[in-house]
């Protein structure tokens, strides 16, 4: 009984590897948007010099 439970747990976990990878990429993309692309003046002003140095489109 216990063995069956741990087996099913294992397979469900390995199935979700793709999902976990996608979640990490999504988090990275949201963060990157905030630092490099968000149009709000406050975000732009704080990250201004970094945006220029990464050659992200700015102004």
């Amino acid at each position, binding site marked *: 009984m216990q063995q069956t439970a*741990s087996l099913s*747990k*294992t397979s469900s*976990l*390995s199935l979700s*590897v*793709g999902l*976990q*990878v*996608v*979640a*990490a*990429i999504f*988090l*990275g*993309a949201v*963060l*990157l948007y*905030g*630092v*490099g*692309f968000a*149009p*709000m*003046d*406050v975000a732009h*002003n*704080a*990250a*201004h*010099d*970094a*945006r*220029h*140095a*990464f*050659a*992200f*489109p*700015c*102004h």
Partner: protein
Amino acid sequence: MIFRNIIFSAVIVGVLVGIIYGLFQQYQISPIIYAAEEFEVVEEETTGTLHVHDDGHAHHHDAEAWGPEDGSERIFWTMFSNVMTAISFALIMIALMALHNYKSSKPKIDAIRGIVWGIVGMLSLFVAPALFGLHPEVPGTIAAELENRQAWWLFCAFATMGGVAVLYYAPLKIKAVGLLVIAAPHILGPPLPDSHGFANTSPEAVAALTELTSEFYSMTTIGMALFFVLLGACCGYAVQRFVKLDQAPIEAA
């Protein structure tokens, strides 16, 4: 838990790489930005607006949003932004490396292979969209509509990364598609302004800004090379050391 290990690894890699690169920026790139700002023309309408209420009471609104004060505050926010950018790139890179280790039969990632990933990152995120497209710009350079440039930048970055992935992973017969995908944004062409130049048109400003722009090209290129090689190596090491997919089920049981 792969997700957790990816996050932890990315934060550590991002802090390390962001600070090292941030120091380089502070000494070699930021001085060029500060110098270029000396020539910026102040737009009248951004200084403030007079606001009149119904009761006849008038007051002055400051239209300029918050920005860090020059000096340590500005350096702090630039450093913070570098670290955050490094963390976000590290998140994406480590996640894709984990996916590679999980799905691909090609050799597993280590620090050395990570450097190759870093170079691909530099090609996709700096060389293709910036050096071969929208050039690195000092403040005060005239450029096309911001949204169009951001859209093209993203398109170019994705196309270059996707194209390289096709070249590496796809079967021989369709590898050529990868080259086509890499070329696509450049065939389309980046959104460029109608007239090139600087907002400040006085001859000495143009001469100085032209000089600063060429310095800016060299220093951002060196900075980005440093950033991406370091990022790739650290991400490669982290994924080999901390994101072990084959052990994940055992760890959870």
